[in-house]
């Protein structure tokens, strides 16, 4: 493993992933190197099948690489046992999914509490719901919430653990334009105000304008990385 700088938060070295989908072998990610610094807002851009979700899953420790290593604060995830990797996800990662993945049988508040119970020092559940603007909808079940509201619950659920890393997989993919911008704004806020590192995956190129760095992927490999010294305010994004 290459020596990392102090601010290196995440480092991937020659990470590759091959899936078997049905009877087909898919090279989802070719050998890839990447580093992410603490406090960065990184957007991974690419069309369907480019390997961006795979990359995100590997960073989040919900999937393991076929080859290579993924390090979080110098700790190699691929060397961790099941308990350690669970602890990593529990303490360090907050996830936001395209399809929200709320537990349909729990209310908004209970969905957030469901995750808060996992950590020793969670944020106050109602404060977090208030932060995402859903305090007044706290006792509603997912089926009673709009898509944007469900995604805000998902963000609250991710933030309640106070994770240093927030991973979002197509967070606006299932939302309308205005709601999508609100969600992106929320993510930007937690990045700036709480210093949480955010990695978001999207196929919407406009979202890249709000990031510190944009990583372009195609056919399972990184094609380019753009640094953005002047990220656009999410409210000004257009697509």
């Amino acid at each position, binding site marked *: 493993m290459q020596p990392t700088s102090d601010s290196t938060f995440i480092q991937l070295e020659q990470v590759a992933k091959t899936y078997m989908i049905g009877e087909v072998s898919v090279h989802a990610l070719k050998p890839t190197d990447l580093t992410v610094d603490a406090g960065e807002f990184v957007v991974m851009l690419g069309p369907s099948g480019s390997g961006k979700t795979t990359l995100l899953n590997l960073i989040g420790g919900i999937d393991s690489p076929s080859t290579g290593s993924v390090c979080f604060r110098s700790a190699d995830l691929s060397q961790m046992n099941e308990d350690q990797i669970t602890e990593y996800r529990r303490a360090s990662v907050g996830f936001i999914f395209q399809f929200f*993945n709320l537990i*349909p049988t729990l209310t908004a508040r209970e969905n957030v509490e*469901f*995750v808060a119970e*996992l950590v020793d020092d969670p944020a106050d559940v109602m404060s977090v719901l208030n932060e995402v603007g859903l305090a007044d909808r706290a006792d509603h079940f997912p089926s009673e919430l709009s898509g944007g509201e469900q995604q805000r619950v998902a963000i609250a659920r991710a933030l309640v653990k106070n994770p240093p890393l927030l991973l979002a997989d197509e967070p606006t993919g299932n939302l309308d334009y205005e709601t999508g911008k609100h969600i992106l704004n929320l993510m930007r806020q937690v990045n700036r105000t709480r210093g949480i590192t955010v990695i978001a995956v999207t196929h919407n190129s406009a979202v890249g304008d709000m990031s510190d760095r944009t990583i372009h992927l195609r056919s399972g490999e990184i094609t380019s990385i753009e640094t953005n010294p002047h990220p656009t305010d999410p409210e000004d994004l257009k697509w």
Partner: protein
Amino acid sequence: MVIRKLDLKLLRDVRFSPWLFLGIVLLVMSGITLFDASYISYNSLAASYQLTYQKLNMADFTVDLQSAPQDVVKRIQRIPGVKQVDGRVTEDLTVEQRLATKRVIGRIISIPDAGLPSINTLHIVNGTLPGRGNKRELLLENSFAKFNGYKPGDFIYPIVGDDEVRYRVSGIVMSPEYMWVVASTDDPMPQPKQFGVMFMRKEMADRLFGTDGSVNQVAVTIMPGANRSRIMRQAADILSPYGADDPIPMQKQAGYEVLQRDLRGFRTLATLFPMLFLAIAALSIYNLLGRMIYSQRAQIGFMRSVGYGRRAVLRHYILFAALTGLLGSAIGTVLGYYLAFEITGFYATIVSIPFTEVTPRWGIMAAGIGISLLTAVLAGLVPSLSASRMTPAEAIRTEAPSVGRAPAIENLIPRLKKASFVWRLPMRNLLRAPKRTFSTIMGIASAITLIMVSAGLMDSGKAMINFYFDRMLRYDAMVTFIHPQSQGDLGRIRTWKGVQRVEPLLQVPVKLVHNGREMVTSISGIESNTQLLALSAYDGTRISVPRTGIATGGDLMKRLGLCLGQKVILTVPHRIISDAASIPVSDAEVNGSRIGKYRDQVFSLSRGIQDITFKKQVVVTTQTYEPIGNRLVMSIHELRRLFGQEFDLPPNAISAIMVKVAPGYVKEVSRDLYNLTGAASVVDVQDMRQQIDQAMSVSNAFESVMFGFAIALAFIVIFNSTMLNILERTREIASLRALGVTRLQISSMLTIENLCTWLAGTVIGLPVGRLLAHGFVSQYNSETFHFRSAVFPRTYVMTVTTIFLTVLVSQIPGILRLFNLNLAKATKELSE
């Protein structure tokens, strides 16, 4: 109390998937209800017998003897460890019943001159004790009274010598010795209508039989902890000068032993069937939980991705399974107890049990709860483990479409390729999700299996009775004579109006001895060209009466360790000798010869008691199927040749006549048969059939309960899997609806798909069910009833039709739900 959110999710899963939860709870509940009901019933029956034996002070052993003075009782009382001794007179005789216009076999047992006997005491059901002195009164055993319509105040007519003596029935009683009314262990067929036990004051019995203060049976109870074998030995030594038989311990007493045999059969059924039921329920729970977990893949993926460990996920789903197990078993335990109460009560009405004891059996209930919890947890373990082992990314990812294939049938029938998608899609769907298809097919197959097993038990019982009465006993009435006589009456009976055929029968009591094993029974001698008493092989084919040697059933051969071609020793049963000896000399001369009695037969023993210890060897030449009891058959000519001299039989001796009668003439001919000189009893075959039906009604009732449960389980299993099958594909079907596929087309497709699984399940379930039914039936065989496994064609039709209708009905709620879908919402949602 703060409830953890993961546990809250568990409770909410229950609330949001009520059908699934309820389905599993019902599965567990039915299994435990059946387990508890059958096992508690079995235990309650055993306890009720014990309670009756205890309350009525059943003798620990009895000794039959020729005759002994009353003071022998005092000598036995002095044996250390003996608690109580009772001496009594017991005599078998013929009884005339004017009430029921039937002559039957009776047994008179003496009771003390005052009060009830201290040992083998009686439970008075109705009426009062017999009066003292010259009052000609007696007590009648309950089953006989019930079957023949006796009540206190009626009269009954025991025949002593040639005289009918009129006795008034003062009361109806139950006896611990005759809860199951059998004359002897060797003839275990219950004969509540044909065998009447009467209890008479000792002074009256002495007057009737001339026993003059002596006794011919001694009943003994022993103190707790005393050495029974030693006491029996000492009692036998004291009684041996009085022609005593070996002491008969309680376990060998006829009524006790036959009850225990019946209980053993019940226990087999009460254990095996619920186990099969629970195994099938477990398989179904496994399928249902597996599918529930599959539908929660995304949730599992999320839980794992936010930091819930494998153990937490495993615990979560195991808890769901345990919750269903706990709730199902709690309800099942209550229902099982209630049902046990009903079954035991019903049994008590069939068998004369005065005291029933149905109490909650905590051990059984706890075992039931344990078994159900274990069943549910084990059934949930595999899917829960697989859920916990899913990697979060794998769980969260939308599953790749399974590989679509055209079924081979489309290649075999090219026209099918051009058929409407309403036909082609269901076929492809079945292949597309093989696990789902397999689990549905297995659900249907197991439901069919369960129905086949319970129906098979009932069919086998009915087939056995039908075979016995329709194929073997071809006569309508049989008259048995007091003494073997020459066959002069045959020709006369043939001329009676309505009589179609008449055949002679000679029955000789024998003791079979082979390889140190003994069995007391009788040999029936019949004509070689008999048409009224058919012999059959196990496969049902007709067998001729052997010209030489004996024919007998497989069970008897097994009990004696006999093989075809082997010789068996025939000797005279001890009982004949002792009974003959017990008759006072003045009365022993009947028609100029001494007599011996065996069951309803009275045999002439011209040479006296000491000269009849003969031994004959006969070869077993033919093996027959004997559905009920154990019968030995040989040619009547051969039998006369073998035993004619020893029993001093008249030329062409017969002891009974079988008569085939035209419809409508049975009663008239039976009445005339009674009036034949020397007639001891007349058996009406329909009456006999009724008694056997009665004897089997308990197991029939129990089998009916099992059959009901099998149908219920079949419905639950199929309902759940069909409902899930539809609901799992809500989004897919909503998409089809959105594309313009009509409701009729969708319901047609689903119906075709479900009927394909029904067909496959039927093809698997019928042979498996038949095989298991065969296994169960062979376990259920007793020494009295020998079942051949049978499943009637109508049972196949009923099973297939029931399951077919269940499949059709089960899909209705799911289809109705699909019809009311919000298409916009349903097509957008990834999963429910």
